[in-house]
């Protein structure tokens, strides 16, 4: 798994491209990207939300899930292979589940509203939008925490720093020799 990370990233990238193709070929609906507001110039409306999701809703949500997974996998790629320990995989896996949960709450909250026409509110916004606004932003905060608090364990350990300093001094000696 560890050395095969790039293949997983590639597979997800191909799947996402495939979904984009499938959506492009799906039955078109009117105003999929919005339409002019009847009363206010410069303002647009979305109109019938259920119709806009009818043919591509699940494909779109799958695209979103793959993107969220890709973000975690790419973050993992940024960590040297020997630092990809089991506990790191647990943290990253937990972050992935957390972001997917937020994504699901947002999507299902939206479809629920489309079905019932009713919504609650959280901190000023309809519940589904609150998941998008606050949830999406908070979803990546564990990544920031892993990076900042785990910096000396996963990103740039004291041993890494030592190796880099050694490399710098080797290069400096090399330059001195070539100048002589």
């Amino acid at each position: 798994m560890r050395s095969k990370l790039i293949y997983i990233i590639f597979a997800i990238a191909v799947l996402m491209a495939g979904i984009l193709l499938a959506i492009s070929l799906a039955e078109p609906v009117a105003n999929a990207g919005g339409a002019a507001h009847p009363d206010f110039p410069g303002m647009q409306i979305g109109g019938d939300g259920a119709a806009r999701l009818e043919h591509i809703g699940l494909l779109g949500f799958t695209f979103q899930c793959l993107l969220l997974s890709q973000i975690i996998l790419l973050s993992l790629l940024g960590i040297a292979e020997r630092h990809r320990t089991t506990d790191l995989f647990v943290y990253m896996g937990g972050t992935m589940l957390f972001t997917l949960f937020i994504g699901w709450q947002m999507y299902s909250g939206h479809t629920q509203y489309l079905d019932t026409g009713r919504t609650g509110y959280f901190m000023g916004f309809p519940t589904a939008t609150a998941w998008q606004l606050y949830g999406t932003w908070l979803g990546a905060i564990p990544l920031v925490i892993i990076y900042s608090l785990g910096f000396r364990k996963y990103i740039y350990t004291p041993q890494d720093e030592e190796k880099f300093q050694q490399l710098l001094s080797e290069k400096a000696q090399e330059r001195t020799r070539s100048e002589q």
Partner: protein
Amino acid sequence: MEAFRQEIIVGAVVVYMLFCIITGLWAMRRTHNSSDFFIAGRGLGPIVVALALFSSTLSGFGFVGGPGLVYSIGVSSFWMVVISSTGYAVGFFLVSKRIRMIAELRDCISLPDIVAARYGSEAVRFLIAITIVLGVMGYLATQILAMAVVMQAILSGTEMFADVGLVTCVAISSAVLIFYCVTGGIIASVYTDVVQGMIMMVAGTLILFTAMSVFDGGMQEATSIILADDAEAIMPYGVAGIMASLGWFFVFGLGLAGQPHLITKMMMNKNIADNRSILPMSLFGYVMAALLWISIGIVMRAAVIDGVVDPLALPDDAASVFLTAFANPLLAGVVFAGLFAAIMSTSDAFLNIGTAAIIHDIPKAIRGHSIKNELFWARVVTVLLAIVAASFALYSHFRDATLVAILGAFGWGTFAASIFPVVAVGLNWKGATVPGAVTAIVAALLINFVSQLAGYTFPYAISGQLVAFASSMVLFIGVSLVTKPPQLDYDIERVMDI
């Protein structure tokens, strides 16, 4: 105080511009060579880098176009903001450590330098440099034009400068920008960024509180008004729909790590270990400043629907009408200074990387070495580049907007599509090859250019930028996997092991 509203706003902007000029003079004494001019001699502390990073991310678009977009298409445009935590995190995981190490190891002063060191290829350096120059021209022209339009709007409200023309405003604003960029290079740029970033954070926070007080029921009343008018506008995917929104999530979320004006700043910190604090500080600053984008947009859409204010002539008027209708003159002064700060902090970053590409990277890619007396030519080219971009902006405004629109396509999305795979993935995967990098860059440029020129729109509001980015990712990894693995230089290989 209300009687002196316009004078207070002009005063705030003048004070801000004087500060930029003084910073330029101060930084000139610290700029001794091209390394100082382009990457501040890799000697910046964490707070400076963090503020410079976030203030360069949020351009004038965030202060003017952002609220306008929320007014126009509702929550869809939130996706460009809420991905900031993802964008910064991915950027730091993938780029910040290795770009800084290679910069020190090989004395790199630009992103194309890093790419040439990583791939051992002048062709890749050349392509990245060309991409940067094209993008810089489009970005700079639009930023200078935005700066001049705002200045004209402010000055024309006073008696003394009621008839001021756009050309004069372009000349004044460009002169200030050129002065501090030429005298102080990136050192002036990042230290003005620090103050620019602080102004933007204060402006964003104060605007949020002002916006929440417009309706008695606060933000919930505003969103309820929008919901009653058109539910999709305030639902998670907004008016533009699910694919447009996710496209922005993709392009802005992953794409931050492909923006040359941002990742170049990751080469400038004094200590690699400072990255651990730079990431959360940048993110905090961005979120504070971006509050303005969301809160003005939502309140103005609700206020127009509810009849509190007249419909806007243009969506981009949202911020200025909000400030006139609802903000205290002092707050309006801070926000207008913040607006100039946002535009200038992005413009100076682009001037810097554009100049580096022209005097350092393109000659190096073609002739094998850069030009002599780089610092002198850096200053000359900075002036020329700004003048060309300003002329370009005026030509576009008065004669033909097509050219800037086409180059504008070489904005965030094109940088993301062409640079992210090559730099962000390439710095972390030894299997990345030159053919993979060349294919990804060329495909990204072609797809963006062709879809823009042909005016092609993909179904379900899928953007050309998303198609370009998804394609370049697949092509970069796919072509690299089927081509011969490269023989990396020993020092680069060791950096990639760390």
